[in-house]
């Protein structure tokens, strides 16, 4: 595969993985928790580096998952001690993220981990960081990572589909039926952390927020079906990756930033033109309504 094709595949996998998983958070009204977790996994990654002194995949994943779930836990703890939830999220993620950024400055120059990388990723370098097995080149590591995380997420969503749906729609009723609501919550937080850390190399901490939230919000404007919404959100993620990549190549700007902007573009389109919930269609319907009643 060519260099560009690998980047495109990586971007699409980011869009797909984050799109499907993030849509669940949008429905649970927890988008800002996704924002928080995607910032704080930086601390997990840096922490894993200090423990193992290498940028190895597995410890990074473990570190990120731990910090991600811890973030959710701290927010929950402050929340239940009476702190309003938006402020709880604000305090936790800014603190942990600041710690991550400060710790990064202690990482030597010889290691490929710096603040800029953390913020916007370096998708352009992805194709060169390949996985080799017995001298065989198996393609970029990031593609393998994203692919595995995507499969894990799909497996979890498939297995716990009805539990995820019910705890999202009516958590009290779920408690009543004896469904472990907290378990499902932390399962999702774990999925978000994994998706974030897998996407981290490519798009960075803040842009991954766009990939997590915006496709889900866009799909929410387009459909009234739960399953369709998840699939659509993933497709919008892929579409954004392709559009963003094309624009970035054409105008020589950050690929990751451009992909994230593309999610915004599709959101605006859906916001205006969605057949069911778009502003334009609502206006047309209202006009019809008022003109039929002189």
């Amino acid at each position: 595969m060519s260099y560009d094709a690998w980047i495109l595949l990586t971007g699409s996998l980011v869009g797909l993985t984050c799109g499907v998983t993030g849509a669940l958070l949008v429905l649970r009204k927890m988008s800002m928790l996704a924002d928080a977790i995607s910032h704080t996994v930086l601390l997990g990654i840096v922490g894993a580096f200090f423990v193992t002194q290498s940028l190895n995949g597995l410890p990074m994943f473990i570190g990120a998952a731990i910090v991600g779930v811890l973030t959710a836990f701290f927010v929950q703890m402050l929340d239940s001690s009476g702190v309003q939830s938006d402020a709880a999220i604000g305090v936790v993620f800014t603190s942990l993220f600041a710690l991550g950024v400060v710790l990064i400055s202690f990482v030597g120059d010889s290691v490929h981990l710096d603040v800029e990388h953390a913020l916007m990723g370096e998708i352009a370098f992805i194709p060169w960081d390949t996985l080799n097995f017995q001298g065989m080149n198996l393609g970029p590591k990031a593609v393998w990572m994203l692919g595995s995380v995507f499969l894990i997420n799909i497996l979890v969503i498939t297995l716990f589909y009805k539990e995820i749906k019910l705890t999202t729609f009516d958590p009290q009723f779920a408690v009543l039926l004896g469904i472990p609501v907290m378990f499902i919550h932390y399962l999702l937080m774990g999925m978000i952390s994994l998706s974030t850390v897998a996407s981290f190399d490519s798009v960075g901490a803040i842009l991954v927020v766009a990939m997590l939230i915006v496709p889900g919000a866009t799909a929410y404007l387009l459909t009234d079906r739960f399953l369709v919404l998840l699939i659509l959100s993933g497709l919008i993620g892929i579409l954004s990756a392709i559009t963003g990549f094309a624009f970035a190549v054409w105008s020589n700007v950050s690929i990751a930033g451009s992909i994230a902007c593309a999610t915004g573009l599709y959101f605006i389109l859906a916001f205006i033109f969605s057949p069911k919930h778009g502003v334009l269609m609502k206006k047309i319907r209202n006009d019809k309504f008022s003109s039929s009643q002189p």
Partner: protein
Amino acid sequence: MNALSVQNLTVTYDKTPVLQHVGFDIPKGSLTGIIGPNGAGKSTLIKAILQLIPRTSGDIQVYGKPYHRKRRLIGYVPQRSEVDWDFPTSALDVVLMGRYGHIGFIKRPGKKEIQMAQEALRKVGMEDYQDRQISQLSGGQQQRVFLARALAQDARIYFMDEPFVGVDAATEKAIIQLMQEWKDEGKTVLVVHHDLQTVEDYFDHVLLLNKSPVGCGPTQKVFTMENLKQTYGGSLKFIGEHSVVLQERV
């Protein structure tokens, strides 16, 4: 045999007691209205019994066994305002959720469950709306979907939180009919209710509540002027025999 027995139930929010030492028994096969002024803790009582909110103290028994061992027997119709009706799902799907507790972890609802859900929708007169997105239902229709979901649960004790609020006459009729059916099947129903005028028509038992119970028992025994005065304080006005209108204190 008592279907439900509550002892010494206390709930506190931030050091302020909302319910204090609540204790009462509900006989099997009764239709009980939970009556009391605003802020008396009626919804809180239901939620505390169902263990949806933390309690400071209290012992709850269902058919003589601790609550958590008999949770399968409990059905619940929450207030409509408690869920997000923009959620992308259909009426049938919501009713199917009533079966999730029986299906078990990981497994999918099958043909049998779908049939049960459709049957429940038919019973509340909503069979034509099964594929409708829930935000496109009227308030009364949404309430009937919740009723159907409780029906699909196939419970023995039902809790309903203000089911008559903001619904049309057809829905109100459907709710009453369903309550009567449940009673005839020997099931027990508890309803948070605030319209004093209809209490005697709808319920054979009442629980008068104002932070702690004022009275609990058969309607003709407990639903008396004296008890009502005690429950509502000075804010009641009486018109004619047995019909009462609530007058808000200005």
